[in-house]
């Protein structure tokens, strides 16, 4: 350790430390910023890739050909989707024709809080795919809604929604079997699937009602 300096008056000391700190900050912030600029492209790339990975799970890449991540609509607070904050909706198109909407939804009544979903709904109103992106359901009990945790690897629970649409499935059927619907559930944990089913159903209704507007919005540009 450097030995304590002789005697400084307070302002002098202040100046001295300020200058030292200044010098160090300049050097290290400079270094850091350099590193930032250097890694920036790959960080952005991985962020994009991560988003695409999610989208890929609910909508095969072969189904569309536009730059989906750039074809967006900013959604305001949307109670129908359980969303209290604004969010972004992505539009998939093939040859300029609307293919599907990809957006987030929130199931507010999970066993242990909110369940965050990403949903893709095709232009014809059928569900293309649903995935859970965030939840706090009990591990080993309610977490089978997550594909990774579902013991049934062949046909994970969440894929039951695939291709369901309002046209084919009535609202009454859009429920777990226990409540008279057609969806499976794991005994001892019905709250979670109920919540997800309810959220998906609401999302499908909302998409049905707003689809045309959403695809049209800003499309002119």
């Amino acid at each position, binding site marked *: 350790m450097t030995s304590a300096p002789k005697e400084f008056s307070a302002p002098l000391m202040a100046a001295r430390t300020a200058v030292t700190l200044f010098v160090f900050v300049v050097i290290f912030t400079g270094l850091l910023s350099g590193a930032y600029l250097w890694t920036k492209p790959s960080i952005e790339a991985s962020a994009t890739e991560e988003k695409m990975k999610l989208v890929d799970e609910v909508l095969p890449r072969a189904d569309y050909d536009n730059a989906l991540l750039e074809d967006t609509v900013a959604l305001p607070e949307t109670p129908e989707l359980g969303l209290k904050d604004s969010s972004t909706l992505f539009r998939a198109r093939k040859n300029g024709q609307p293919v599907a909407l990809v957006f987030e939804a929130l199931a507010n*009544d999970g066993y242990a809080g909110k369940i965050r979903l990403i949903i893709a709904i095709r232009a014809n109103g059928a569900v293309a795919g649903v995935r859970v992106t965030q939840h706090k359901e*009990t*591990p*080993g*009990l309610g977490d089978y809604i997550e594909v990774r945790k579902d013991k049934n690897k062949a046909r994970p629970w969440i894929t039951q929604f695939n291709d369901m649409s309002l046209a084919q499935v009535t609202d009454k059927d859009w429920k777990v079997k226990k409540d008279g619907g057609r969806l499976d559930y794991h005994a*001892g*944990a019905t*709250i979670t699937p*109920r919540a997800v089913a309810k959220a998906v159903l609401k999302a499908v209704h909302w998409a049905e009602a707003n689809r045309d507007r959403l695809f049209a919005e800003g499309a002119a540009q």
Partner: protein
Amino acid sequence: MFAPAPFLLKDVSVSQVMIQVCVALIPGIAAYASLVGPAILVQLVITTVAALVTEALMLKLRGKPLSLFLTDGSVIVTAWLIALTFPPLAPWWLVVTGTVFAVIVAKHLYGGLGQNPFNPAMVAFAVCIVAFPALMSQWPSVGLQLGLIDQMNIILGWAPRVDTLTGATPLDAMKTALKLGDSSFDISTLLANQDIYGNFAGRGWEWVAAGYLLGGLWLWHRKLITWHVPLAFVASLSLISGALWLYNPSQFASPLFHMLSGGAMLGAFFIATDPVSGCTTPRGKLIFGAGAGLLAYIIRVFGGYPDGVAFAILLMNLCAPVIDLLTQPPVFGMKDKA
């Protein structure tokens, strides 16, 4: 060299105390057995054996006299309480895991009898419900009538656990219904449906609770517990449940329901009163009981677990040393100064 005074001792011993606690549990056990069948007796045997074996092992490892400590009976109380708080059809390895964990980690790592800051039985319950929530929330379904052999087979894993065997406890059912946020849902209708539920707390649970109450009162009469903890527990649980019930009787169950369902009575008279892990000063006991009652209600109704008694008691165990410290009664002659 010289034996110390006093030379006269009252004829009491730890084993006597513990045996009396076991005796006091018997009315509750009887009611329980008549409700869910002999499974509970099988569980009592499993936990007792597991607890005694583990205790003996730990005593041996720690070089303590087996004859002295194995006969003190405290581990039997722990074992019985574990059996009574776990689902009666829980697989044997689950109750054994809980018991072994309780005896080793919650009791002997702290030096054994009398020195554990946490209630061993409740540690067992909490560990298992956190680690195996699915199994810990499978209670025998309504009206299930199975004989001893069938029940044993299920417990020992020789018969498959069919989903239809299990159902929700009244508390669980109520909570599930509440969770769905169905505005059409009405507790009183749910409870009034006598096919499924008994008059107060659902299909005869009130008799089990009454059994515990009886045993608890006897313990109080024998001066093994004081009135502070149970009374404070019951009072705070009924006050908060009563307040919310009056506020919205269709969403919140009545105090009577809360008192008689789940582990409330067992907790108030047998678990929260555990002298080792609880508070010891009179005011401390009141705070301990009231806190446990309040937390039990909050966790039960708003929290993530079907019954909050176990966690409430563990949380209060956690506070007990500090509460004791802050509620030291004034000593003789210092009352006005304190």
